[in-house]
């Protein structure tokens, strides 16, 4: 128990220790300062030259967003093509079929938007070509998209008045060459040294212990190429169906530690990058403090609940001393699994090393809460953008509370910014609650036709549906599983939730930042509310708590909370 707990603490401390210097490095990259990896410059220039992009041309926020949406549209069409034709395209030693159009739609979007909700299973549903040129490629570029958008916001928050927010393509390419690629290569090598496969040979045939003719086919593939970026880019889409619970995707406790660290690394580092970039380290620590408080409020109860196990099962005389081990890997144990369950949901990875469906009801609720907030560290680049929206609302309310028109980093927050912040906040409530309502309605209206949807009807079934839309909206991609989600209904509705849940929450903060950047800069005075204080941190936390609790309380009551009280009664 103690060593298990120590393992968790070690993972967190190591991540933090790496995130601080890495944040400084990221800030340097976006500021265009000299750094270790400048030898990539010729490669970057080559890309700019062949695509005819002037990487020095300043763009305003609208131009940046047009660029972002354009390149995303191109990738979407590309991914659709590959997935719907993978059956006859090369690199398909296992002879897996092409995807149906609704599954391809869901999958293409899912990887495009950094969600990686997988309604297919990697072993049988995707070819090596799809895994590499479609999934792994999109995992890189979707992470870089989020980072580049965050870089635009960083630039906009500088103390000056301007429309020019740097060049989006430049941020994008540099996110790839200077941040994502180098680390992925190093980590891939570490993974291969720990037994992760990297092969194009197709299924392996292995003799079972019985020997003789009793053989099993074991799926392999170019796994080590995908898994680093799967975590580093907070993507979470695994090579195999069971994700990081699969021994080839997560061979041992050491790889578990690495996977854990690299998925939290960039979301944490971006906070410090903001601090270095704006020369406001204290502000960054305030944000980090709020995020960490939120994270701990979710992860500690989960570890305790999972450690305690299920009282209903204990009543049946089953020993629960190892915790609730259903759906968990013995090699990781309950603390590391519970820790992973929250890490993967606060940030938008959504990879799993245990099955969320089997967690205690309130642990499941915490996982959903983590995704509903989606800003305690949050996804690669986008986490800080989501947090930015909460900052705007908190600044507005607290500015009023101290008797001054609200201002943030020297810029006044007015009606237009509030409108955007409100729309973004509203949107996630609408997508999650609306989606779940639609599914509930459909299910309640035709319980027989849709019996295949839910493995567990009742409260838990409700949680499964709620989780699916929460995960889609948060671009998380983890599933409560137990949900028969490869149907046109789920593929299409979740697909739309993913698109809207991805792009509007990126455009919103960038728009706010762009509008703010264009406003007159007002230097701080004694009457200005300082945003780098503990008090303001408490204010942001209160805003996050209230907005989330008020939006989702009734839904959570009918899902995990009702399940919990039924369980203990």
């Amino acid at each position, binding site marked *: 128990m103690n060593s298990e707990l120590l393992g968790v603490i070690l993972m967190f401390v190591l991540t933090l220790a790496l995130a601080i210097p890495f944040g400084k490095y990221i800030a340097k990259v976006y500021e265009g300062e000299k750094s270790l990896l400048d030898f990539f410059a010729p490669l970057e220039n080559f890309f700019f030259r062949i695509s005819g992009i002037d990487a020095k041309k300043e763009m305003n926020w609208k131009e940046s967003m047009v660029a972002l949406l354009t390149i995303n549209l191109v990738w979407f069409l590309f991914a659709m093509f590959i997935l719907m034709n993978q059956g006859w395209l090369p690199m398909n030693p296992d002879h897996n079929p092409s995807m149906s159009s609704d599954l391809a739609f869901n999958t293409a979007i899912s990887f495009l938007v950094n969600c990686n909700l997988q309604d297919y299973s990697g072993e049988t549903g995707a070819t090596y070509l799809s895994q590499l040129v479609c999934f792994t490629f999109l995992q890189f570029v979707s992470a870089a998209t989020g980072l580049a958008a965050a870089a635009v916001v960083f630039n906009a928050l500088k103390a000056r008045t301007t429309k020019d927010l740097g060049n989006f393509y430049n941020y994008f390419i540099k996110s790839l060459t200077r941040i994502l690629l180098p680390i992925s290569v190093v980590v891939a090598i570490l993974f291969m040294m720990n037994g992760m496969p990297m092969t194009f040979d197709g299924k392996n045939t292995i003799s079972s212990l019985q020997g003789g003719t009793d053989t099993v086919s074991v799926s392999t593939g170019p796994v080590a190429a995908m898994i680093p970026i799967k975590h580093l880019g907070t993507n979470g889409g695994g090579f195999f169906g069971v994700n990081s619970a699969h021994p080839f995707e997560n061979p041992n406790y050491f790889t578990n530690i690495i996977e854990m660290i690299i998925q939290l690394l960039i979301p944490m580092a971006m906070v410090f990058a903001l601090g270095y970039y704006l020369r406001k380290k204290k502000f960054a620590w305030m944000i980090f403090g709020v995020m960490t408080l939120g994270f701990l409020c979710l992860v500690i109860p989960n570890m305790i609940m999972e450690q305690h196990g299920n009282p209903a099962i204990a009543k049946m005389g089953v020993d629960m001393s190892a915790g609730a081990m259903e759906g968990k890997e013995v090699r990781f144990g309950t603390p590391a699994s519970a820790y992973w369950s929250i890490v993967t949901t606060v940030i938008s990875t959504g990879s799993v090393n245990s099955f969320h469906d089997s967690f205690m009801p309130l642990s499941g609720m915490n996982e959903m809460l983590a995704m509903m907030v989606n800003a305690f560290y949050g996804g690669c680049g986008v986490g800080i953008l989501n947090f930015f929206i909460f900052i705007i609302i908190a600044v*507005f*309310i*607290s*500015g*009023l*509370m*101290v*008797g*001054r*028109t609200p201002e943030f980093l020297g810029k006044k*927050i*007015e*009606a237009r*910014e*509030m*409108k955007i912040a*409100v*729309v973004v*906040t*509203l949107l996630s*409530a609408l997508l999650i*609650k*609306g989606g*779940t*309502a*639609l599914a*509930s*309605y459909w299910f*309640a209206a035709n319980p027989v036709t849709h019996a295949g949807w839910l493995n567990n009807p009742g*409260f838990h079934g*409700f949680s499964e549906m709620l989780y699916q839309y929460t995960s889609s909206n948060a671009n998380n991609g983890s599933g409560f599983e137990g949900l028969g989600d490869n149907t046109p209904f789920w593929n299409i509705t979740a697909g739309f939730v993913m698109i809207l849940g991805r792009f509007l929450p990126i455009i919103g903060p960038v728009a706010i930042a762009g509008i703010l950047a264009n406003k*007159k*800069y*007002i230097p701080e*005075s*004694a*009457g*200005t*509310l*300082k945003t780098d*204080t503990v*008090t*303001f941190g*408490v*204010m942001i936390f*209160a805003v996050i708590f*209230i*907005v989330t*609790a*008020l*939006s989702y*309380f*009734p*839904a959570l*009551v*009918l899902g995990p*909370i*009702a399940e919990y*009280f*039924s369980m203990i009664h």
Partner: protein
Amino acid sequence: MAKRQRNTALFQKELVNEALVQSFVKLNPRIMFRNPVMFTVEIGTAVMLYVTVYSMMSKDTSEGSVGYNFSIFVILFLTLLFANFAEAIAEARGKAQANSLRKTREETPAKKIIANEIKVVSSSSLIKGDVFICETGDIIPTDGEIIEGIATIDESAITGESAPVIRESGGDKSSVTGGTKVLSDKIKVQVTTEPGESFLDKMIALVEGASRQKTPNEIALTILLAGFTLIFTIVCVTLKFYADYAHTSITIAAYISLFVCLIPTTIGGLLSAIGIAGMDRALRANVITKSGKAVETAGDLDVLLLDKTGTITIGNRKATNFYPSVGVDNEKFIADCVLSSLSDETPEGKSIVELAKSQGAKTQATDALLKDARFVKFSAETRSSGIDISNGVRIRKGAFDAIKNLCEKAGNQLHRDMEVKVKEIASNGGTPLVVSENEKVVGVIELQDIIKPGISERFERLRKMGVKTVMVTGDNPLTAKYIAGKAGVDDFIAEAKPEDKMNYIKKEQKLGKLVAMMGDGTNDAPALAQADVGVAMNSGTQAAKEAGNMVDLDNDPTKLIEIVEIGKQLLMTRGTLTTFSIANDVAKYFAIVPALFITSIPALQALNIMHLHSPASAILSAVIFNAIIIPMLIPLALKGVTYKPIGASALLQRNLFIYGGGGVLIPFIGIKLIDMAVAFFI
């Protein structure tokens, strides 16, 4: 100061009656539509009326009993009335305040000049450009500008100040206000406003809501509140489908109750009352604002430009010391000073005589000398004044360099110690007044500014609010620096010309600061217009009053400080009540959500942490609490949250604790208490 008695009671009987009537008038959906939060409550109320009638007619109890539905309907209706009442009472108070100012000027006879003849007409028939005459004892019929003559005027009806003031044509004090009374002399006045368009009329229109536009901040807040309303709409609509899934039926009354309780009705109902009360508070401070935005901007001010005289120092300088030159007899010197000042009517001159008397100088002996003396008035050219006595002695007193020139022209070098003394006085914040007799310097009088008691504490308070104070003075930089340091202002503009103010304002604005200034003269007008908040004195010229966005009826230069606090209070009241309103929802959820599901999911009884009596009583209690919290907060909305200059972070901490923490806790207690009462009836 004999301030006019003001009625400060929050709820006066006649105002309450008027507000009650208005509460019903405002139920008109077209008026209600301006307030999205309350408008949705009105829709909910209408639906409940329908449900009540339906359950009465059809005897169908699937939507709850008639009594229950009717109770919910009544409470929602009351919620609407309470919110309307809050707005109406704020309006009524503002209007009453403005009317009491306006009353004095209604239907007074005016001596209008028509083709060189005086004709008595009613004041209401005067239009802009008309000219009328006012003589001793006349009430001035309307606002105007003196074009001929000088008069002492009693402005106590407007300002509450009993001491009469002098108004004369041509200068910066040429403006007269309707309702004030001429005490002496005769003036010819040109009307400057159309009937119904005076500042007071504008203010009344603002308060009445006819021309009241939402301020930018109010708009932003309304968006946030509308956002919350939409989130709760989503919550309530989707809940229907979740309930279907959970095989639970929820009555329409319960849905609407949940919805009304969750949306921020408290702040939604009080929002316009808070805005009106802000303008009303300004009016109570005797400041007329031309827009609600100006009050709000006042709370944001970064820089205040304050005239030294009258604001920082008491009126005029006073003589504090006599320093004779080397070789001049002290008594002889004082005698010269007295001689030159006896006919000098300026406050400085009087103070010299006073000081001399207090040092034992005899003034009777000099009376004889004054008989055929010729008094030389101060002029901008000579920058000195004095007296030519019949025995041929010429005494002059004036600025150092003016007297120095005068003496040097006559070939008299002045003593070096005089120069030293003059510098010493100046660097101590005093003004040296050099005296010469027959073009020979005999000594120097030290004049000192008297800084108003308590003023440096007020500047300290402003500094804590984050407001920078700037003293504007015509003094030389040395004197200005000394007084600035002593009074505790942050910066000063010395030897200020009108355009210096303008340039300073522009410079600060370029840095993103909001600047306020006070002024009265026509030459102040451009700067008043340039400033973000320009407060014109009521005694000032029409041009100044047009240029500024506030008019101070008291002509009190320290009023800016009060205005800043009123602005801050306005914003704070909005912010704290928003926080309170939204924090309330936590308790309301715990009251209503278990009530909705307890019958079909008994395990959820555990969420009923308040142990409310029954689902019906829980819902009723939550709705009742939601309704009565509005009238309970009306006094706070009208008076405003107290502002304390303790720094923004400390203030946030305090308000977050009181209104955020209180907002979470109070409804738990309130709903429980109401539930205990409601349990008796059902």
